[in-house]
């Protein structure tokens, strides 16, 4: 054999290796070491519901070097549909408001990781029956090849194999048939706390009471995609449910059903004064700082915010992640706004600019419009409180919100 031929074979082998992850794996073939019990009746006639956190379903990113969008969530769903529809006659995704029936509920917590250029997908999952009793709990991991030219395929393949592994374990253990699992329940009857990972919130934010009914005003992004929201008022933790939101204003009202005497009142004149002193109270950096409110002071630094922003003003009181939704209160105790965001400094740092305390809040004018539109109760402040009372009243009315998925 001459060198040319050897080189040609070597190059072919190299090409074949680099092709790994470029093609979708065969869904009819199970991963190594996984076999289905031959006595199983497949497809199962038990209606299966699957819960996946919404943030996972919507996951996508833009690959920098190719500028192509990589659809992580869609790849996962596509693989999951391919596998589950093979083994169950009826498969649907869990919707807490749906009255659709299920016999088994599969609660999956997927975790993506990257190791030596490979995609590692881990499914921590549990299966609940119609009585909402956990009948199986396990986890499975699959390490798949990542191909930079075909990233969607890599995510699909890892999802496909991990789902197959999970399905084989589930089917072999539970042997699901309508004869064994005859009972069904509706999705809206399920306690969402059973599905969400209640050990650790995925995010946290701040809110404040706006009336004696215990309704809480916060920034809408604080509670987005949450399956369960808990409000911590002092030492007490209560459930909070969404009543109304405006994604445009980034505003939401939550219901706790717990009446309170501690609520904040709004400025009647609806105008903010440039330079006036403000106080913010929030619960930032949950998990890092002790669960105690942070009170910061600053000024209204501008009546306008970034170019194109709507209804926002700029203030200088320092805020941190987790401060969103907190109240911005005047030195006399009137609510002037809600903390919504801060300047994203990462791109500016690259240019050698480090801006300080450029934070944004939604003007009370739009908050009042929102509250009036949806007929929420709130009051205007008629008293001029001293600084001690302002701090006390703001601290007492502010709550920490934790989001679980």
């Amino acid at each position, binding site marked *: 054999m001459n060198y040319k031929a050897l080189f040609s074979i070597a190059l072919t082998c190299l090409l074949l290796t680099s092709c790994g992850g470029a093609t979708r794996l065969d869904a009819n073939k199970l991963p190594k070491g996984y076999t289905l019990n031959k006595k199983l009746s497949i497809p199962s006639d038990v209606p299966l519901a699957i819960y996946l956190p919404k943030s996972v379903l919507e996951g996508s990113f833009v690959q920098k070097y190719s500028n192509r969008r990589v659809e992580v969530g869609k790849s996962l769903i596509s693989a999951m549909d391919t596998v589950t529809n093979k083994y169950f006659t009826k498969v649907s995704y869990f919707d807490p408001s749906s009255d659709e029936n299920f016999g088994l509920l599969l609660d999956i917590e997927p975790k993506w990781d990257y190791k030596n250029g490979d995609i590692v997908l881990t499914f921590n999952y549990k299966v609940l029956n119609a009585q909402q009793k956990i009948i199986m709990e396990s986890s499975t991991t699959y390490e798949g090849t990542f191909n930079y030219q075909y990233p969607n395929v890599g995510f699909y393949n890892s999802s496909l194999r991990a789902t197959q592994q999970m399905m084989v374990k589930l089917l072999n253990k539970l042997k699901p048939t309508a004869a064994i699992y005859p009972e069904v329940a509706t999705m809206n009857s399920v306690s969402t706390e059973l599905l969400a990972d209640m050990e650790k919130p995925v995010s946290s934010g701040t809110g404040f009471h706006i009336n004696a009914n215990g309704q809480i005003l916060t920034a809408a992004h604080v509670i987005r995609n949450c399956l369960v929201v808990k409000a911590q008022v002092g030492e007490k933790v209560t459930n909070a449910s969404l009543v109304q939101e405006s994604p445009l204003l980034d505003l939401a009202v939550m219901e706790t059903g717990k009446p309170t005497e501690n609520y904040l009142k709004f400025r009647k004149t609806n105008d903010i004064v440039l330079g006036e002193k403000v106080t913010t109270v929030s619960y930032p950096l949950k998990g890092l700082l002790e669960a105690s409110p942070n009170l910061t002071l600053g000024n209204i630094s501008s009546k306008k915010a970034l170019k194109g*922003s709507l209804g926002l003003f700029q203030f200088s009181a320092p805020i941190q992640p987790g401060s969103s939704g907190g109240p911005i209160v005047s030195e006399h105790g009137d609510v002037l706004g809600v903390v919504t965001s801060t300047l994203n400094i990462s791109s500016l740092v690259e240019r050698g600019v480090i801006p300080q305390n450029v934070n944004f809040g939604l003007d009370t004018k739009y908050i009042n419009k929102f509250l009036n539109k949806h007929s929420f109760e709130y009051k205007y402040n008629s008293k001029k409180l001293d600084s001690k009372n302002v701090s006390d009243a703001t601290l007492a009315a502010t709550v920490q919100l934790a989001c679980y998925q």
Partner: protein
Amino acid sequence: MRLLFLTLIFISMSLTAVNAKDAKTLPMHFFTTLPDEVPFESLKKLPLLSEIDKNLPGSPVVITVSLSQQNTTGGEAAGFASALLSGSTLGLIPIITNQDWTLRYDILVNKKKIASYSYTENFTETINIYAGIDSKLDKKTMDWIESTIPQLEESLQSDKALKELIEEYNFYF
């Protein structure tokens, strides 16, 4: 009576016309991952998107345009065979790929997706193994991207979530 009825209809029609005329177009920040911002000018010509702007960093409403690729089953087999052939000829013969390209328009409000429209087209490409990956789009792809705009306009006009968003914008601002 009839005259009064007709007058009332006329007045209500005039009011509707005035309201529709007075309705402000929603400003949106435009963001694309495409190497050439091809669709910007064409999108700006659509009445519902006439206020899109590449420089509105604070806008709560963002329209994004992105492209993704997916191998087809036939394309995988052809690509695999052509890769083998290409390798065995030391790259003299290019690799042939067949892919579905998906162009996606997303409308996000404070990072919450409220509308998404995607259009898919099949493309066959030849790739030289010694050439780097080219993120530029050829004329055929550009033409296809442009051709999706009338379909997008139709989708935008019938989108309930977008209509509600525009109404909300006009209510608050």
